[in-house]
């Protein structure tokens, strides 16, 4: 016999929170100007979907995230694999990577705007830049953590540098690459919303900021809700991609 299922607890907690929020807001214990009841937020969301405003802003942000994500992660994976394989390259680049990695990329956003202007280029660049080092370091760690036995097998059976890159380093580091990509997706969302708050005329971040300025608090909450939903959906998408990329991994 199976033990009691606790799955319903996972539904109870968010629903309970919303219910408490609804009651507090409606009774006036929490100021409804700052904490509008969830039912109102949902209604606002529906209106904004119908008017096309919300899909537009989501589309703008999503496009920036996807382009920035590809532009940042593809070179990061390639360089990470190379750095994991080649010790001289690692020695040469590691100090720079270690120094730039911890800088909050949003802090250099003014510089990026200065060079690239306020348009799409600066948004895409800030996303690419903020995930590049994260993916790079994870990929490199993935190669470094590989058992030497795999490299011995490859070399004993005639693999040259190129074959070792594609048949050992890349597939071997794939689990770690995906760890990096999943973390990066979260960072990409954080940084794009941040960048749109600071200087933009469209996107979810812009929506949140503008709603705050015109005191449309419900719309602001819609922006926050959408950001959370996007993060959740991105995780699901990456999980699916991960299973697709690694059919060789045992499933439990």
């Amino acid at each position, binding site marked *: 016999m199976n033990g009691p299922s606790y799955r319903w607890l996972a539904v109870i907690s968010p629903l309970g929170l919303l219910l408490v929020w609804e009651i507090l807001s409606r009774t006036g214990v929490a100021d409804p100007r700052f904490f509008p009841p969830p039912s109102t937020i949902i209604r606002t969301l529906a209106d904004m979907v119908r008017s096309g405003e919300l899909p537009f802003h989501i589309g703008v942000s999503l496009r920036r995230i996807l382009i920035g994500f590809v532009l940042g992660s593809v070179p990061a994976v390639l360089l990470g694999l190379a750095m994991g394989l080649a010790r001289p390259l690692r020695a040469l680049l590691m100090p720079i990577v270690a120094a730039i990695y911890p800088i909050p990329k949003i802090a250099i956003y003014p510089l990026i705007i200065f060079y690239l202007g306020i348009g799409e280029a600066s948004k895409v660049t800030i996303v690419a830049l903020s995930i590049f080092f994260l993916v790079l370091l994870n990929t490199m760690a993935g190669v470094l953590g590989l058992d030497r*036995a795999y490299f*011995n097998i490859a070399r*004993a*059976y*005639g693999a*040259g540098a190129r074959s070792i890159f594609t048949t*050992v380093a890349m597939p071997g580091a794939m689990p770690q690459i995906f760890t990096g990509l999943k973390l990066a997706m979260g960072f990409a969302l954080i940084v794009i919303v941040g960048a749109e708050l600071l200087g933009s005329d469209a996107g979810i971040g812009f929506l949140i900021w503008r709603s705050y300025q015109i005191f449309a608090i419900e719309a602001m909450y819609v922006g926050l809700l959408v950001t959370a939903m996007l993060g959740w959906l991105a995780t699901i998408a990456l999980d699916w991609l991960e299973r697709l990329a690694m*059919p*060789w991994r*045992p499933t439990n």
Partner: protein
Amino acid sequence: MIATAPPRVAPITVRGVGKVYPARRGSFVALHDVSFSVAPGEFCAIIGPSGCGKTTLLHILAGLFPASTGTVEIPPQEPGRLVTALIFQGISTLPWLTVLQNTEYGLRHMRVSPAERRTRAVEQLRRVGLDRFVDAFPHQLSEGMRQRVSIARALATDPDVLLMDEPFANLDEQNRLLLQDELLRLWQENRQTVLFVTHSLDEAIRLSDRVLVMTSAPGRIKAEVPVRLARPREFRSVRQDPEYGALSAKLWEALRDEVLRARQT
């Protein structure tokens, strides 16, 4: 000896081979002045205490890294064939490749056409009884099956010399006996030169024509014991042969001091 196929002309000659690794303080001598030769088509076993440099020796012969001193003579490479094929202990397959891709792995670096690669790989997988598992991934197989994949990968490269590094060490006794039978059957058909590293006295006697005993580190060849048991070597007849006991005692005598010495370091 019953030769079912003409032996390949592939002798190995090792002269004064030494290997020194840089260590934290000074250096570590893994091998010192190792000399021996293996005749074409001979099945030669090497036993020695753990850490005596057996694996290092095989890796030098496979060309994974050079010796510090001495020379190794192996036959020249021909197109479409590998001179030495190494079979590993422990991790022996690439987990992200299918059984077929693992078996084709050597061939893909040998300018063999994709069609021929497949034919050769499938043929060897059939010989080791895994042709039904071409599309499986290594994690779906048992340890013994994975080791058979790595044997098929080696044979697919049509090597002159098979270098085997304790390939059955991670198997349980019963599966080990079955795989030994299988290896002997495969060898009887092709008669490659085989150099087989093991720490099992029984395995050395059961499989080989000659056993080389290595000292503890730095490894040298200490003794050479010919095994003149009749082939094919069926389990029962080998174990009941009085020669088996004598050989076992003789090898242990040569090995015992070395194992004791290895334990002290």
